């Protein structure tokens, strides 16, 4: 009986790991700036949202993504609502990809991620620079997009392992 309770608890915890990661990443905004590597940054939240909403939107609900975006705006200091909009655009792309794809293909997903981050970063730069008159460093955005794109396969393999564990617990 106790092992059954323990199993269901682990199952529930594992299921909420993607949400936990998302909120931790937006609250913490890991930047690695203390390593003094000039221009090194990547957007973990983009990778996380792209992967989990592409796999199955049940792991990350649109409501929690919307809320995470608002929190990110507050932490980073961006005008409120911009990150939510960008995160939801990633969800729109992944929902579209899910609808048109019968057999998932890594290369297609990876290219789609590049297209998505370039699109949302362009929207972010345009709205910050031209609407809110906040000066931004274009090069940093470009490099951030590049690293986010390059790091996707690494996180993909890590998240695949995690997803298998969640599935196993679910089948138990």
């Amino acid at each position, binding site marked *: 009986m106790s092992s059954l309770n323990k199993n269901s608890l682990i199952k529930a915890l594992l299921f909420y790991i993607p949400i936990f990661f998302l909120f931790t990443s937006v609250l913490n905004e890991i930047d690695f700036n203390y390593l003094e590597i000039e221009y090194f940054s990547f957007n973990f939240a983009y990778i996380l949202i792209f992967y989990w909403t592409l796999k199955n*939107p049940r792991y990350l609900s649109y409501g929690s993504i919307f809320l995470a975006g608002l929190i990110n705006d507050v*932490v980073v200091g961006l005008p409120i609502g911009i990150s939510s909009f960008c995160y939801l655009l990633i*969800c729109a792309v992944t929902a579209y990809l899910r609808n048109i794809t019968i057999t998932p293909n890594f290369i297609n997903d990876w290219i789609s991620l590049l297209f998505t981050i370039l699109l949302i970063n362009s929207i972010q730069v345009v709205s910050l620079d031209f609407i809110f008159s906040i000066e931004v460093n274009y090069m940093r955005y470009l490099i951030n997009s590049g690293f986010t794109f390059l790091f996707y396969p690494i996180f993909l393999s890590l998240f695949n392992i995690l997803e298998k564990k969640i599935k196993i617990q679910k089948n138990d």
Partner: protein
Amino acid sequence: MASSRDDFVIAIRSAFLKKSYQQKFSLLTYIFLSVIIVILGSFNFKPVQYVKIGINEIVYRSSFIISIPENYLKNLTIKLEAHLSLYDQFKKNQTELKNLKEKKLNNDFLILENKKLRELINETLQSDDLYAKVLVDKDSPYLKSIILNKGSKNNVKIGMAVVDNSYLVGKIIEVNYTNSRALLLSDLNSKIPVLLEPIDIHAVVSGTGKNHGVIEYTKDDYDQKIKDQKIIVYTSGYGGLFKPGLPVGKIINDKKTNENIVTFFSDFRQLDYVKIVSYEIGSGN
């Protein structure tokens, strides 16, 4: 042809309008909601501002707790660096201390003289200091700012200067009830009026988004004047925002780009406690 267009429309419609399992609203609803929030936020719509202040109060504290592991790693890196360069630093400090001791005697005399001169022209310089703890130092690529644990409850106001010991680090740009956000001098949007000494040139120091600043808007061609000179950058007090004479940094020549840059005296990575300063120049008359 028509069939593929139909498929595309169906896929798009399904992506935006279909509600998945346990989803209360469709994706399109959330997208509309965020666009409305962005638009209302840009017009400073009051309810959106109140929502933002409410979220700030909760999020800043949570962010402080969640950032503890990362801050620990950051401090560890800094400590390791300090340990590795201990001997070199000691030698450098020894020489510097000797020089500073000599200069201090001179400074003490100048402070007294300055005080007497201010009394002579009936001018008083009153400043209020408020100590604040740095809750979060989000050095993100987009905005270089810090969150402080003092807000409107403690009479913090937008525009107040933030100093680390006596060095200027930034200014307050957002005030909530129990906390506030300060924009660092290194941010791209930071522009402060300064005085370059000893050449006595007024200028503006702009942030670059990196760990240094640049000199902008000098009327004179200062490049010639700073050759073989050690230039210190102080706040000029123009615009009435900052107390005049706050040390900002020094001008050095960047060997990579052969440009003159301002290196800040304060290390923005290591801010734990700062002072929020407001000042008032009063006349004795």
